[in-house]
Every structure is written in C-alpha cells, then in structure tokens.
C-alpha cells in the first residue's frame, strides 16, 4: 500500500515517536550524559569522565547488582511460569469450583505490590509470623528469612512468583484454549499417554505463549522496586539490592546523580542485550520453522 503523500506515514507515527523521544530517548541521553559528571543536584556538576563507572566496577558493586538482578529474575520467571503452567493445566476444566479457584489464584496478581509486601512481611515475621508459628508448631526453629543474607533474595523471588503466577496461569489458559482438542484426542487414539501428549502436542503449540509469558515476566522482574523498598530496603547487607532499587538509593538517598545515571546506562545495556538475545532466539525459531 502506498501513502498518498510522503509525509502521511510520519504524521501517523508522529505522536508515538514524540512520546518515545520525550519519555525514553531524551531521558536516556540525559542519563548517559550525566553519568560523566559528579552531581548532587545542589552544587555545580563536575566532569569526572568514566569515574562513576570505574567506582561502581572497582567495588564489585556493579557486577554484584547485575548478578543479583539476573538471579532474582531467573528465579521469578522460572517459578511463576512453572506454577502458572501447572495450574493452567489443572484448572482448564468447566465448572464453578474450577472457576472459583482460577479467580482466586489470579486475584493475587491484581493486588498491589505494596499490599503483597505488607502481607508477606507479617507472614514472615521471625517472631510472630505465620511461617514461624507453623515451624515452631512442628518443632522446627523459627527462621528470619528476610533477615538472613543467604535467604532474603530467594524469599523475595518466591513472593514475586506467588503474585505473578496468576498472570502466567491466565495467559497459559488462553493459549491452551487455542489448541484444538482434536489434536490431543488423535494422539490419545494413537496410544499417547498424558505426558507424551503434553510433551509432543501441547507444549510445542504453547511455545509462543510461553515466550510471551517469559518475556513479560522478565521485564516485570527486572523492574522490581516496590517489594524491595517495602520489605528489605536492599538489605540485609545489600543482599536484595536490585538494579532499580540501587538506582533509587544512589540518587535519592546517597545524592549521587552521576553514579545513578551510570547504573541506569548499564541497566539499559543489560536489558538491550537480553532483548537482542531474545530476538535472536525468536528469529532462529522462525527460520527453522520456515525451513521445515
């Protein structure tokens, strides 16, 4: 289709492009520029070259934050996808009871992160929390999951996965309903057992849905902030300091705009690398399908 005038496509794209430039490209450019300065918003910015990057890298902070964030995201995506898929398979049945359970599981997703964080803080309280009481009831010692540097991050990941499972389940349910039942029935007639039917019929047809769920969960988990801010403030001993919280802490608590900007640029680079990797995987899959 050819545009009647050369400027028409630009006019159509204009509003989106303007928003993209104003709210994404321009701020990113400003952040990249400010990452070369030491600035506290009050006194004049001082050019320091790559010092902000060097300081972050020299202390091992940058690597630690990146590793923590990736680890947290992997845990969240894996747990939420697995639980979401399992629940979708179990609950993809007619009847009010199943509908009620589906709605209950999904309800956690619509609750705000703040409410989720407060609820779990109460449940995980080392002295009076529900988890500690249950542990004591069975004779086990109570544990401070959020106060232990080794357990705090996995605990946050489990809580995030709990909240996001409902979302993964609903998307998987939609994917499952798009698969013609006749395919499963034909496989069953051919003697395929339930696992084989899932492995060779359902899962391949769910792959695009799974890719979508994985991508959106990855983006959500990389942006984790509320849960960290409310439950741990990055502690104990920085064990839960993820990228977005680290940026917030640098700029608003430590008053280092330059260092926060350097973290932002690295965060963008990491996300960009992951997005390119994902595009590559998708294009490879598309290519192999085309070849088949």
């Amino acid at each position, binding site marked *: 289709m050819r545009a009647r005038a050369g400027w028409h496509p630009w006019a159509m794209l204009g509003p989106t492009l303007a928003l993209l430039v104003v709210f994404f490209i321009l701020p990113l450019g400003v952040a990249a520029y400010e990452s070369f300065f030491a600035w*506290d*918003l*009050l*006194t004049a910015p001082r050019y320091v070259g790559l010092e902000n990057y060097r*300081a972050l890298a020299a*202390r091992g902070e940058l690597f630690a934050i990146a590793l923590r964030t990736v680890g947290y995201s992997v845990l969240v995506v894996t747990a939420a996808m697995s639980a979401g898929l399992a629940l979708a398979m179990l609950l993809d049945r007619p009847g009010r009871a199943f509908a009620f359970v589906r709605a209950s599981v999904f309800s956690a997703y619509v609750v705000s992160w703040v409410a989720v964080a407060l609820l779990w803080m109460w449940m995980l309280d*080392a*002295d*009076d929390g529900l988890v500690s009481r249950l*542990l*004591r009831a069975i*004779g*086990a*010692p*109570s544990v*401070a999951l*959020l*106060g*232990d*540097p080794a357990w705090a991050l996995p605990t946050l990941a489990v809580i995030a996965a709990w909240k996001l499972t409902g979302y993964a389940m609903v998307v998987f349910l939609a994917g499952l309903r798009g698969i013609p039942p006749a395919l499963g029935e034909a496989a069953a007639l051919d003697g395929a057992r339930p696992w084989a039917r899932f492995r060779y019929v359902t899962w391949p047809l769910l792959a695009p849905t799974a890719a979508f769920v994985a991508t959106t969960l990855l983006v959500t988990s990389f942006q984790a902030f509320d849960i960290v801010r409310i439950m*741990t*403030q*990055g*502690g*104990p*001993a*920085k064990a839960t300091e993820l990228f977005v919280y680290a940026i917030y802490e640098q700029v*608003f*608590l*430590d*008053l280092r705009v330059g260092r926060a900007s350097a973290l932002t640029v690295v965060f963008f680079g990491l996300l960009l690398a992951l997005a390119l990797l994902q595009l590559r995987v998708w294009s490879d899959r598309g290519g192999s399908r085309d070849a088949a």
Partner: protein
Amino acid sequence: MRPVVHLPPCSARLLRRDVLLGCAAAALSPGCARQERAAREAGRIVVPFWYALGDLVRKVLLELVAQFNASQARVVVKPVHQGDYFEALAKLRTALAAGVAPALSHVVLEVLPYLARAGVLEPLDRYEGASDMQFVPALSQAGAFTDGSGRSVFGLPFNRSTPIAVANGRALDVARVAIPSTWDELAEAAGQLTRHEASGEVRWGFEVPVSWWYWVAMMGQAGGRLVDASGRLVLGGQAGEKALEFWQRLVHEQRAMRPPPGRDYQAWQSTSESFLRGRAAMIWTSTALLRYLEQNASFPVVAAPLPRQVRWSVPTGGTMFVLLRSAPEEEKLAAWEFLRWMCEADQTIAWSTRTAYLPVTLPAVDRLRAAGWYNRHANDRVAYEQLEHVDPWPWAAELFRVERDAVDPLLEAAVLTGRNAHETMQEARDEARRAA
C-alpha cells in the same frame, strides 16, 4: 441551539499558537520558577513548612502549628508531610534544584554541613533575636559540631535526641539483673536475660539496630573519634573495630542479641515492637521514643545511660530547623517569626514533655526542673543528664555519605556474617576517604 462560529484560518492558527504558548507558560511559571513575593492567604503571609515526622510526634507538631496560626494574624504556617527523614531530604533537594523549595523545613543533623556548603541554607545569625536564644549547649549547632561556634548558624535545634538504653523493668526484677553501666555488664546481663522457651520462642537479652548512630556511640565509648586531630577520617581506629567486635560477640558467641530486620527506621520500629511484645528485655533506642514506649508497654520501662567501655559517650541526633535561602525575603522573615515562637519556653516544654524529644532551650529546662518534672519522670531525667557525655560531630560535608555509603552497609554485613572486624573497618575507612 448553540451558535456555530466559523473562525477564519488565520484566527484558528493564532488561537492554536496562543493555546500552546499559554500551556507552556502555565507549565513553566508557577511550577518551575520561584516566585519573588510570598504567597498570601486572607492577607497573611503563607509559610510552607516541610516536615518528616509521624504518629504522636506529628500530632503534637500539627497542634503547635495550629496554635501559632491562631495566636497571630500576620503569618500562616502550612505544614506538609514529606515522609521519613531521608525521603524528606530527597524531596527537599529535588525541590531546591527545581527552584520550588519551601521557606522552612527541618533536616537531620548530619546533613547540615552538606547543605550549608551547597549554599542553600539561610544564615540565621542576622535575624532579630537570634543571639538571645539560649539553647542547651549540646543540642545547638555550636555544641553539636566540633568548632561549632566559629561559623554562621544554619540550623536551630528542633526535635533533638540521643541514643539511650531502655529495659523491661519486670524482666530485670525477675532475673535479678541490674541495669548495666559497662560493656562487660551489658554482655553479662544480656546473657542472663536471654530465655529460650520450650515452644521455640526466644526472649532476647538485648536488641539494637545495627546502624551508624549506635556504632558511633560505641566507638566513642571505646575511646575513639571519627576524625583524628589533623581532620583525617579514621572512624575511631581500633575503637571502631572494638565496637563491631562487641556486637559480633553478642550475636554469634553469646547469642544474646538479635540484630533487628530491616534498614534505617524499619529496624528501629522492629526493635520497639520486640521490646513492647516482651521479645527483647533491653534495647538501645532514641530518647525520642521514650514516651511511645512508656505509653504502650505493659511493664515498667526503665531508661539508663548507654554503658561505657573506657569512657561515656553518646552522639546527638534528630533534626534542626532550617530556612531555605531561595525563599522570598518576607516569607523567610515570617518563618523566622514561627521559629522564635517555637523556641519559646512554653512551646519547647509542650513539645518535649509530650513527645520525649529533649528540651532544647535552657529556660525550658529551668522551668521543667522548677516544676519537678524530672523528679516525676526519671526516664526524662536520665535522657537529659546523658547530654553531659555528648561527643560532637565533625563539621564535615560528606558526613552523611560516609554514614550511608561506607559504614552502614559494612556494619550490617559484618554483624550478620561474622566477617573480620579489622578488615571490615579498614574497608570502611577506605570507602569513607573516597566518599569524602
């Protein structure tokens, strides 16, 4: 039927341009540029006051502001809550950068040198009556910082406090334990007061937030100073390490101290809750929380000075009132009028007795003494008398950054993981020098 008006093309273009210009002007002028004149409300000068206090303290403050507003017809103070101290500071700094800072706020003590160096604070010496104010020396800017009398006054003491030891009187009686006055006694008492129930629950002998303020107190008690005679940041040298080792000993060897979960004020809140629920027999907290603990505990609350190692030492904390230089002149004058009123004995007494923040002026203290307040409120007397052992802070612009960036995260990690204290403090010293 509505009349239809057809604008000529030229008028339509003009109208669009006018609308755009109008929007731009509206977006830029009131929000981004500081007005030269103070805002008025029914002829009274409006003073925006950003504050960072919650619960009981917030209630008392708002009542005092309302009382001031009702007491005269020239000024109206408008308090705006801005979260906790650090959130309020972040907002204040952003507002300063955007040119929309309020005339009046209060900031944590450690950040005063930083804001003063940035040139955003109004020197208060020139204001009428400034030199007549008789502050409690340890709580004024002059006494709270080393060489404090040699520079302009940028902050007036407002909600000022020190760390203090607080014990569950009933637990002390049952265990026949005296309130400790040395580190060794503290370790022994904490061990005696720690109790493991058959249900698996633990009543800890001692709890204190593993954070800068309390570490500074212990470093001082072990004989150290944050900076040496030449002004170099040494973080107490060996005394700083001793303080950390003492915490590690209580947590890992004696298992008599629980480091509370959370950071900053969440850890403080957690400590108070442990104490009130009877899960910690002794805590270190702020004098500012004495009233809250007294009013909410189901047992007698006994306050004591922090124990000494080689000497007594406590830092001061809390906030100072500041005027922001960027505010219109008449707004600053109006804010000063409020500050003078707040520093009068009546208001100082009301603020101090209702909240347990330390009374900041000498006339207020004299009146409290004369009225027998300290005989009736032994905990308040302990808090006030502990001011004798205050160690002033160095006037260092990067002090708060040393706290947040170099010391706090390392202390927490070392106490939780048992990392070598010397290595930890050496790293903290290196970090602190880089930060400074």
